[in-house]
């Protein structure tokens, strides 16, 4: 049975910049099934970052309906959105966004500390780091790690609460191609082995080509969806 993780219908997003209204999304609809891997491509300004923010519950659509993993997201409060992000979504950013002054282990433990079962966070963080191959780097600070290693810490952080979806926004943008490929392999392996839905935003056709499907966005709507 194929169940739906993302069900978005008619999403619009309007930004007000002074007097000017900018329509970042214009009635975009998207359906993603559990375990799928999707690459989202599009030129800058196409609305893909806005789409990622809304699908990641970091922002609210101006209108439209969004159901994430069976939960109606439209109309939730800030705290409820925070809870959904905590439980269901793992983010991976281009700039890693690790806290520089704490260890890899502390960084990975962070989402657990904000969850409603903060006990045992230490062990779970250690397991997650082991899963990304950094069991020997747990006490290192981000500044003592290579770019590829830092992004793997970020992946461990994204996985530690066992989310339904991994959302990676240009995950290889700050890495050389070898390290970048390792990161993509790692993300795809979690997608395969754990059936975690994977969304990758990227410019790079070689990376996009490794996902099951490529969705192209232009001017706030889906231009091409091969499924």
């Amino acid at each position, binding site marked *: 049975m194929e169940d739906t993780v993302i069900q978005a219908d008619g999403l619009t997003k309007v930004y007000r910049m002074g007097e000017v209204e900018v329509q970042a999304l214009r009635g975009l609809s998207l359906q993603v099934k559990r375990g799928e891997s999707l690459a989202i491509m599009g030129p800058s300004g196409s609305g893909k970052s806005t789409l990622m*923010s809304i699908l*990641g519950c*970091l*922002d609210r659509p101006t209108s439209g309906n969004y159901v994430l993993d069976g939960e109606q997201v439209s109309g939730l409060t*800030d*705290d409820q959105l*925070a*809870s959904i*992000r*905590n*439980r269901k979504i793992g*983010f991976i*950013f281009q700039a890693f*966004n690790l*806290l520089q*002054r*704490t260890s890899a282990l*502390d960084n990975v433990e*962070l*989402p657990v*500390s*904000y*969850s409603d079962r*903060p006990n045992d966070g230490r062990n779970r963080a250690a397991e997650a780091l082991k899963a990304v191959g950094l069991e020997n780097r747990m006490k290192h600070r981000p500044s003592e790690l290579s770019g590829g290693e830092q992004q793997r810490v970020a992946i461990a*952080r994204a996985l530690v*609460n066992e989310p339904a979806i991994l959302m990676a926004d240009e995950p290889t943008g700050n890495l050389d191609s070898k390290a970048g490929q390792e990161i993509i392999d790692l993300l795809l392996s979690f997608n395969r082995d754990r059936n975690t839905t994977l969304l990758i935003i990227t410019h790079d056709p070689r990376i996009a080509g490794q996902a099951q499907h490529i969705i192209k966005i232009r001017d706030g709507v889906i231009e091409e969806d091969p499924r």
Partner: protein
Amino acid sequence: MKLKRVLMEMISSLRSNKMRTGLTMLGIVIGVAAVISMLSIGQGAQNSITSSINSIGTNLLFLSAGSRPSFGGGGGFNFSRNIRSLTMADAQALMDPYQAPAIQAVAPVLQGDINVAANGQTTSTTVYGVTTPYFSIRNETVSEGAIFNDQQVNTHARVAIIGIDVATTLWGQTSGLVGKTVLLNSQTFTIIGTLTSKGGTSFGSADNQIIIPLTTARDRVIMRTGSNVESIYIQATSANTTTEASTQISNIMRLRHHVAVGKEDFTVTNQADLLSTASSITGILSAFLGGIAAISLLVGGIGIMNIMLVSVAERTREIGLRKAVGARNRDILTQFLAESSFLSLLGGVMGIVLGWLISLIIGKVATALGTALNPAVSLNAILLATIFSIAVGLFFGIYPARRAASLEPVEALRSE
């Protein structure tokens, strides 16, 4: 988020910029230290003045010649003073139980600064010529020997009771002096007692004096015409009747000196009035000093707010990340409030220690300079400073923390 985790985050954040943390805290340290030391010095001054007034006795009144001198006490500079000497007859009149029922006892006093010689040493001290009620009125007792009696006063006996400061100067000892002789104005007196020490007071040492019978003083030591006396000490029947006693003294004296109200040629000083005046002055002084010190604490608080705002701006991206991984607004709020309150609490504790040290040093310096000022760090001052510094941290921390908590995650993540 668990408390332990909040504390760990807080410590790692504050440790990541030790210089800034230290300087921010310094503002609070200085503010609290200033408050503590100023309050304790004010309290010390108050204690010292109160105890020296109390050592004189609270139901004591003091009658002196001349209208009330201008403030500062330099009577000789105030030429408009009406002066008419007090006499033994005045003292006698105040004893009238019908006209002055609130008066318990009366002690006329002759006093003068006299050279004293004994044991090959010479010094200068204040000699008091008194009658026997003086001892009970002034709470003077002897640690050795005895006070003189009425008969010794009547027979103009050449006996003396000496204070321990004089004894120390002349003999280098404070006991075993009864029976020795001392020269007052070249007249030989026999020591019959040593005064119990009252300790130093702000008004000079009560131990640097010699007491002899009034009659003998008039004859041989402090020459005065007629039956004039310097001043008259009066004891009211209780501390509650000092005001009545004061009125009765004024009435009797106006009649005897034939002066109208407002034209008095004498002054009645009430110790209770003096005490309340002194304590209200020191109270105002403490409040004033404490107020100035509180301003520096306020400035320290603004320093905290400033640094917290800088910190929020610097860590916008971190806040965005925390929100992305599930931090609620109140988690962020707690985190920043914890930092600002911890800064001010730790600063406050250090400030209390520093302020206590400062007041200790000031006390030592004052003692070394001969002023009996013993700064008292009261529990109230410590509580006040602690509560105030935490309040400063919370008050000045709440705005930056709210600002951090209300950041939109998307925008925060995008910031550089």
